[in-house]
Each structure stands twice: as structure tokens, then as C-alpha cells.
């Protein structure tokens, strides 16, 4: 029964994505390539003071990305610190400095790690004018950077890689806003709340009292998923019945998370003029996703471990309406994309089952990854893969007609070193420095034994890879974790962006080398296997030792 349900659910999701792949991917390619501006867009460019037909060099593009993100951080930080004076704040005070910093970094960095419990921390103004705005624009930034890299492959002898402000405005107006609006209304029909009513106090059937929350949830929920953000309006995130009330909203949420990351390879294929290249990238993503999902269903169904065995099933931290299969599909989607939304508590998974969401993030968020970041992450890995293939056969590596020379491979190598360094250094520091260890072990860790180590490892993995999900028993609202995770988020987001844009600039300058008999074809199953192999081997080599200290120790001993 479970096997059939697993197959059908995965099949249904992949079928919908396959149907959307061409039209939606082509639409996005058109959005980022056309010379025509809409009326509203022309007005916006005038207000912004930018010339839409002027393309930028990579340093200028980068400067625009960084300036825009910096301003976003300042605004989100300031809104939180002045919350007590803002309207619709539900009487809530301003969060602390370190929490406000963490939250600002987290939402600007498309991570949505939440060290706080939203319903008792943030009012409607901060949620809407601060967080929901970043849910839109941090997603648009990710897509812009990905498209800039694609232009690097598509352009010849070009000093420029597009105009950031145009990419930002178009991604927002033509892709994110319309889809989010339709999705938000569909979610409301399904039962997601959308009001500004605050709490409604009721006397329950048994005579107790209950404060039923409200809020503009559906509008935020839609972009939380579509933009692979993941920050819940409520603490329980997509497990909360007001965020994700039914089996159908659950399916819709999974599709919203996957649609842009899985269709961007089509956009890429179109822009480089070879759809087969897009299929290869999407195929690699889908293969990794499928393996991870099936493994998670198998492990959670097996219900290994003392508590699951005693209960008879791994239902602790899972909602009745979703069950094992649709919980696992959501978890694989939430961590395979960089969304970090959860419809279950990963902390209560079986030991080995809980390792899979971690592994999805450790892959570098490329199966299929975040909006934009998934594509540029996978393209960087493709550069590494052709380099590895080049070493094996002794030829100069090329990808899409661009030579992968010393500069390109240096940038790609630095890229794949960034997040592992942040994850391992952050986790190590948390236990190695006595003062930090006291804070982490005394306050932050929730579960005893090696599971506590897994909570810290999960937190840094999530932050550095811009995912945002958690082994949520951890208390991250401490000066050390708020600061360290905030810094990990910023470095994990923006150092790769610098490297990707530098790579884009360097590729755009090259002319195309004609394909010859010696060119490695990068659209065949052989390359899909090579690319998936590179992703898995890099991850395994980097993280196996630390996983042995956490989930593997808990699950196998």
C-alpha cells in the first residue's frame, strides 16, 4: 500500500511539473530576454532612475545586488526594532538586537530561519511590510543571479551580463506576483486564513478556553512557498492547520515550492539555445530528488528507534491528514528546494530518516534547490563535472562552448567550499569554545545525547545553505546562535553570489569554441550520471565524518 501510494504521489507531482516545464520555463525565458517593457515597468524604472536598456558589467550587477540586499536588511531590522510603535503589532514589543539581526539576515538571505515563535513575536506590520516583502524580493534576486549566469553561457564576447534592476522588477511583476496572488486565493478556498482580526477567544466544547489566531496568512503562505522562502506565519509552519489545512493544500504547497526550481532549467536551455542541456540539468535534479524521497518514506515507514517502535509507527511530530508518504514528500521538497518549510517536526523523525533532510541541504541545495540558487548551484557543479571529465580523458574542459580555464575552475572550486566551511566551522566552534559550549549545551540543545549534536549540525547546515528548516527543539534565540547563524546565512548567500557573478562575467567575455569530436556531450544520460555522481561524492566526502557523530551514531548503534 505504502509503496503504491509513494509511487502515485511522486508520479502525480512529477507529471504536473512535466506539464508546466515547457510553458512556464519558456515564459520565464521570455521575461528575462524580451526588449519590451510594460507600462508599469517603464514607470518603475523612471521612479528608480535606471535605464532599462543599459546592461551592466558583472561588478556593477553585483554592486546592485549587494546594495539592494543591504537596504532590505536595514529596513527589516528597523521595522522589528520599532515594532512597539507600529500599527497592527498585536501589542508585541520589539525583538532583541541579536534576534532582529538574525531575522533580517534570514529573510533577506532567502533562508527564513526563525529563531522565534512568530505568533508571539511579530505583529502584522513586520510580517507584511518586512518579511513578506523579502519573501518576494529575495526570491527575485536569486532568479536574477541565476539568469545572469545563464547569460554568461549564452553571450559571446560581451562585457555585460544584463541589468539587475530590470531582472528584479520583471521577476517580481511578471513571475512571482501573479502566481502568488492566484495561489493565495486557492489556499484561502482550501481553508488558509486571511484576515487582520488578531486572536478570537472562544469557549471550547469541553468548557476550556482557546485563543484562535488570525492574520494575513494565505498571502504570505503563497510566496513563502513559491519563492522557496519557508518562513511560517505560525510556529508550526506548514503543519499548522491554518497554514496547510488539507491534503489538497499540502499538494498545492509542494507544487508551489518545486515549480520555479524545476522549470528554470527549461529557461536555461532556451536561453543557451539547446533544450537538451535543460533536460539534463532537470533530469539530474529529479533523479536526486526521487532517490531521497523514496529513502525517506522507507526509513520513516520502518519506524526504527525506541520511541517509534514503542508507538507502533513514526507518528510523533506528524499530522494525521498527511501521513508518512505526504509528510516525506513535503520534507524532501522543503529541504531539496531551499524552502525550509515543514509540515512535520524533523527533530522527531527516526534517526536515519532525520538525516535525509540534512543530506538534501548538504548536497548544496541543488535537488532542485532554491529559486535561482538551485540552478546556479547546479551549473557550478556542472562546471566541476566537466572539469573532472576533462582530467579523466586529458582534454581542455568546455561547457556549452565555453572553455573552463583556470579562472573559471577556481571560482567554481571556491563556490563549493563556502557552505561546507560555514557548516563545519560553525558546528565545531559551538562545541569547541568553552563559553559557547556552555550556552549551546545549557540553553540551546533540547534532546540529550548525540541527537543534541544533530540539532546544532542541522542548524548550521540549514543556515549556510539558506534553507531555514530546523531540528526545531533547538533554542536558537541566544546571542551566540542568533549571531553565528545570521552570519552563516549572509556568507552562505552572498559569497556564492559574488563567485557566480564573477563566473558569469568571465564566461560572457569568451567567444564560443565550436564543438568537435573531442567535446564532451553534456546532454546525455552519461553526463547526468556524472553530474549526479559529482554532487553525491562531494557531499559524502565532506560530511560523512560529522554525520557519523550525529544521526549515523544514533541510528546505527
Amino acid at each position, binding site marked *: 500500500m505504502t509503496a503504491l501510494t509513494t509511487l*502515485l*504521489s511522486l508520479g502525480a507531482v512529477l507529471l504536473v511539473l512535466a506539464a508546466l516545464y515547457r510553458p512556464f520555463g519558456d515564459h520565464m525565458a521570455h521575461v528575462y530576454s524580451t526588449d519590451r517593457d510594460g507600462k508599469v515597468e517603464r514607470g*518603475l524604472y523612471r521612479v528608480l532612475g535606471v535605464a532599462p536598456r543599459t546592461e551592466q558589467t558583472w561588478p*556593477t550587477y553585483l554592486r*546592485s545586488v549587494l*546594495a*539592494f540586499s543591504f*537596504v*532590505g536588511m536595514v529596513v527589516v531590522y528597523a521595522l522589528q526594532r520599532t515594532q512597539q510603535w507600529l500599527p497592527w503589532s498585536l501589542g508585541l514589543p520589539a525583538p532583541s538586537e541579536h534576534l532582529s539581526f538574525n531575522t533580517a539576515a534570514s529573510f533577506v538571505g532567502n533562508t527564513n530561519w526563525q529563531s522565534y*515563535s512568530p*505568533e*508571539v513575536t511579530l505583529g502584522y506590520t513586520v510580517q*507584511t511590510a518586512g518579511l*513578506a*516583502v523579502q519573501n518576494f*524580493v529575495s526570491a527575485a534576486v536569486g532568479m536574477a543571479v541565476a539568469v545572469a549566469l545563464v547569460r554568461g553561457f549564452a553571450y559571446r564576447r560581451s562585457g555585460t551580463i544584463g541589468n539587475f*534592476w530590470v531582472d528584479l522588477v520583471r521577476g517580481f511583476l511578471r513571475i512571482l506576483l501573479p502566481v502568488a496572488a492566484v495561489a*493565495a486565493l486557492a489556499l*484561502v*478556498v482550501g*481553508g488558509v*486564513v*486571511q*484576515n487582520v*482580526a488578531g486572536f*478570537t477567544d472562544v*469557549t*471550547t466544547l*469541553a468548557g*476550556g478556553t*482557546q485563543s*484562535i489566531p488570525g492574520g*494575513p496568512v*494565505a*498571502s504570505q503562505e503563497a510566496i513563502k512557498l513559491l519563492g522557496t522562502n519557508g518562513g511560517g506565519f505560525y*510556529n508550526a509552519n506548514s*503543519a499548522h*492547520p*491554518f497554514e496547510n489545512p488539507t*491534503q489538497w493544500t*499540502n499538494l498545492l504547497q509542494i507544487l508551489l515550492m518545486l515549480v520555479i526550481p524545476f522549470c528554470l532549467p527549461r529557461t536555461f536551455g532556451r536561453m543557451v539555445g539547446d533544450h537538451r542541456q535543460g533536460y539534463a540539468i532537470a533530469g539530474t535534479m529529479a533523479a536526486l530528488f526521487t532517490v531521497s524521497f523514496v529513502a525517506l518514506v522507507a526509513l520513516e515507514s520502518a519506524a526504527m528507534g*525506541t*520511541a517509534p517502535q*514503542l508507538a*507502533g*509507527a513514526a*507518528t510523533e*511530530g*506528524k499530522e*494525521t*491528514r498527511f*501521513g508518512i508518504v505526504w509528510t516525506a514528500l513535503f520534507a524532501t521538497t522543503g529541504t531539496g528546494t531551499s524552502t525550509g518549510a*515543514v509540515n512535520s*517536526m524533523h*527533530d*522527531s*523523525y527516526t534517526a536515519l530518516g532525520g538525516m535525509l533532510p540534512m543530506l538534501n541541504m548538504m548536497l548544496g541545495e541543488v535537488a532542485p534547490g532554491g529559486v535561482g540558487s538551485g540552478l546556479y548551484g547546479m551549473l557550478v557543479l556542472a562546471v566541476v563535472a566537466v572539469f573532472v571529465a576533462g582530467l579523466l580523458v586529458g582534454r581542455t574542459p568546455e561547457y556549452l562552448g565555453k572553455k573552463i580555464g583556470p579562472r573559471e575552475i577556481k571560482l567554481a572550486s571556491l563556490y563549493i567550499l563556502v557552505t561546507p566551511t560555514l557548516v563545519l566551522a560553525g558546528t565545531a566552534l559551538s562545541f569547541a569554545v568553552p563559553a559557547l559550549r556552555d550556552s549551546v549545551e545549557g540553553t540551546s540543545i533540547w534532546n*540529550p545525547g548525540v541527537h543534541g549534536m544533530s540539532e546544532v549540525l542541522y542548524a548550521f547546515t540549514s543556515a549556510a545553505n539558506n534553507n531555514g528548516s530546523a531540528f*526545531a*527543539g533547538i533554542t536558537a534565540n541566544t546571542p551566540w546562535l542568533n549571531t553565528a547563524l545570521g552570519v552563516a546565512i549572509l556568507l552562505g548567500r552572498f559569497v556564492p553570489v559574488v563567485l557566480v557573478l564573477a563566473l558569469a562575467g568571465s564566461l560572457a567575455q569568451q567567444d564560443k569554441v565550436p564543438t568537435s569530436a573531442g567535446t564532451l556531450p553534456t546532454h546525455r544520460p552519461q553526463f547526468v550520471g556524472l553530474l549526479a555522481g559529482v554532487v553525491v561524492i562531494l557531499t559524502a566526502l565532506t560530511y560523512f565524518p560529522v554525520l557519523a557523530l550525529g544521526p549515523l551514531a544514533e541510528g546505527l548503534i
Partner: protein
Amino acid sequence: MSTTTRGVGRTLAVATRATLVLTLAVVGYTAVVTGAARLVAPAQADGSLVTGADGTVVGSALIGQGFTDADGAALPQYFQSRPSAAGDGWDAGASSGSNLGPENPDLVAAIEERRAQVAVLEGVDPTDVPADAVTASSSGLDPHISPAYAALQVARVADARGLGEASVADLVERHTGARGLGFVGEPTVNVLRLNLALDDLEG
């Protein structure tokens, strides 16, 4: 001022204007969605509130509640929900799972205790108690139980209300939601709606 500094200053000015404009757009989007939600599905937008026999709101169809007395003892005339880790239990302002890990001794002890309690309440063998009856949900506000856990409670509820088991079982069946298309999600029983229907049956 060097060219670079001027460039950075100009870029920051553009970034500030862009942030302002996009913030207004998102606030507008939120307002439009809120308005449209009022037209399309006002009941859901307000939280799917349900009323009791006397017409007062007793909760939301989507938010689970406890059916216990003030001391936490199960009320035998009502179907019982799953254990809740939201606040002190069913606190809708503090949604949360227990986040206890698979080897956590506290979780192991809690499951043992719940299993014994449910077995005594329902008068069944402890091995017959289904998993959802002894484990807390992810939100702490799960409005549902499995059909297996509902079936386990039929005899006790019928007995407490002086109803026939068949009529209670029939009511349970009518409040059981199926899997979508046969494979999307799991079958569920909405506990609050079921208990309201029971009260209606008597009233």
C-alpha cells in the same frame, strides 16, 4: 569623492527607492488578497469557525481541541483527540510539536504512559492502541484522529451517552474524510465536528 564612492552612493539610492516601491506593492498585494478572500471564501478566511447548539462559536473546524475536564481527565462522552504539545496542550497561540527525538527517554516514558491510559479508558488491550493515540502531532493542533483511533473509542462514547454502538459508529463513518483520489493524504476523522454532531444527536 571618488568615482567608486559616487557609484556606490547612487546604487544605494536606487536600492532604497526600489525597496520602497516594492514594499508598497507587497502591502497592496496583501490588501487585494485580503479583499478578494472576503468575496471568494469569507468563512475560510475568518478561520472556519464553528458554532455549538446555542449558536456561540466553540472553535475552528481546523484547530483541534482537548475534550477533557479542568484536571485533564478525558470526558467519556466525547471522542478524544491526539496528545498535544502546543503550550500546555491545545494552546492555539503556541502551535508546536514536542520535538522530542526518537531515543529521548521523556518521549519513551510519555508513550508508555499514554498507552496505558488509553487502554484503561477504552477498556482494551494496550497493544490495540494505535500510534496516533500515543504520539503528539506536529502542530499540537491536529484536528484529526485516524479512523482506527476513532473506532477504538466508539464503544466507550456510546456507553457514556446511552446510545447504540451502531449509531455512533455510523456517525463516525459520516465524519471520516477519505484520501484524495485514493492516494493524496490519509483518511481522517475530524474530532470537533464529530463531537458536535454527537451533541446534536442528543439535543
